[in-house]
């Protein structure tokens, strides 16, 4: 990928992000933040790349592995915790007397 096209990707990605969140009810601020936070753990892909390309370089393998661990901590924890919060909203009141 040339640098210029990567910059285009950056630009369009940012515009997409700005567009996506227009009006959010305050109720959803916390889950949305936590969900978006889980997505930012996408650096796990970079950590994976690092490990695959390490070619037996042990220190690099370790750095990559630790980085992968941190990223997955963010991703897995983030999605689970968001789900836990959202599960409470979806529990519709069935006992409306």
């Amino acid at each position, binding site marked *: 990928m040339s640098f210029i096209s990567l910059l285009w990707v950056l630009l369009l*990605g940012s515009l997409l992000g700005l567009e996506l*969140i227009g009006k959010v009810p305050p109720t959803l601020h916390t889950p949305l933040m936590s969900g*978006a936070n889980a997505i930012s*753990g996408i650096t796990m892909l970079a950590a994976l790349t690092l490990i695959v390309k390490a070619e037996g370089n042990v*220190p690099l393998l370790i750095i990559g*592995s630790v980085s*992968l*661990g941190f990223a997955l901590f963010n991703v897995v924890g983030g999605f689970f915790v968001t789900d836990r919060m959202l599960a409470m909203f979806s529990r519709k009141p069935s006992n409306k007397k």
Partner: protein
Amino acid sequence: MNLPVIIKFVIDLLAVLLLALGIKGLSKVKSARDANRLAAFAMSLSVVGLLSYYLGTSGIAIQSWIWIIIGSITGSLFGAILAKKVPMTSMPETVALFNGCGGMSSLLVALGVAIFPISSGQENFDFFKSLINEVSISVSIFVGAITFTGSIVAMAKLQGWLSTPGWTQSKVRHFVNIVFAVASLIAFFDLINGNTSSIWLLVIVSSLLGIGVTLPIGGADMPVVISLLNSYSGIAAAAAGFVVDSQLLIVAGAMVGAAGLILTQVMCKGMNRSLVSVLFGGSLSAQSTASSGSGEYTNITSCSVEECALTLEAANKVIIVPGYGLAVAQAQHTLREVTKKLEQNGIDVVYAIHPVAGRMPGHMNVLLAEADVPYEQLKEMDVVNPDFPATDVVLVLGANDVVNPQAKNDSSSPLYGMPVLDVQEARTVFVIKRGMSAGYSGIKNDLFDLPNTSMVFGDAKKVLNDLIGELKDLGVGEK
């Protein structure tokens, strides 16, 4: 283009699409839960795409697999355990912790690439390309380190492990932070000049900058800071995407970065604070002690639980104003018991939710939902404010600043202009509170002095339990 490249391209495209739909869906109550799962699916899809690409091209060494498995199992396990165990009340600090780790991950990737450059196949030296590489490594380290230390400080402050040191409220802090920022800039240029060892300087000073910027910020503003740091971790991911040449990383990182920025803006609006004043204004309580907030309470009426129960029994319409104090006392379930009794007696009960009730926008909704409060009974501020004059009793539970009439009446107050709940319009206001201490902003609450306000002193949970007993004695809720 060979097959693995095409497959990866298609999977990446699909993953971006699903992630975008996920973020979009998370901003609507109905679709939020499915959207979250969709995003999680997209993330796993992207991992499959990357691994299949390497399997189809260069192959993955056994040794790499081992380290991949070690890293992913430990990370996922700890993440899952924490996510399951953490109480709902400490959600903000949990998000901060996760976020910090995301930043740390980007930092480590950049550091790894900087210390051990990966062979990209083409060995011919290209000045332009190496410059881009160094810039993206520096940005990734800089933003990653700030995200990490900033988030950890935010977490520690919310947990109460760290208080706000006095010097951070003086002008000294700007000087200190400027020194850190300039030092980062020097390290950055030194790095581009080919001096690789200055990378450590960059790591250290940007970490310190993250601490220095977050430490002076008061607890009330912390949600905004966490949201901003969340946006940073997206930027760090995008920068890491430049480092390892991954479009998917850049798109996803940029998306989170931009979305986080918008969310931060939305939150600031809800709290009537500008981002600049949050970041550089220091803690709100420090300003207020100097300006307003002075003055003693002169007209406090305190009353017993019994009186409170009698008034509640005679009411037709009751509005509950829950705040963080309720969450701390873990009293949301007890509160639900009380309101159930009132409802059984035909009393109209709603909950007034201020946009920033709790420690984070939406936090209170989560806590009340946990206690099985029907979603329809939660009313947002703008909806409920016109109802207060027709309300018999308002029960303020652990909320303070969000019901301070100063925000409307006193232009010298630091709270002035903040949207508040007009509880003083109601016939009777009961404030259940442990003592006369000030709220999170550290500002005196004029509401407590009003003649129609009565204070019920005590721990929220205990008072509510007593209230249940009193209501029982009065025969409320037992047909």
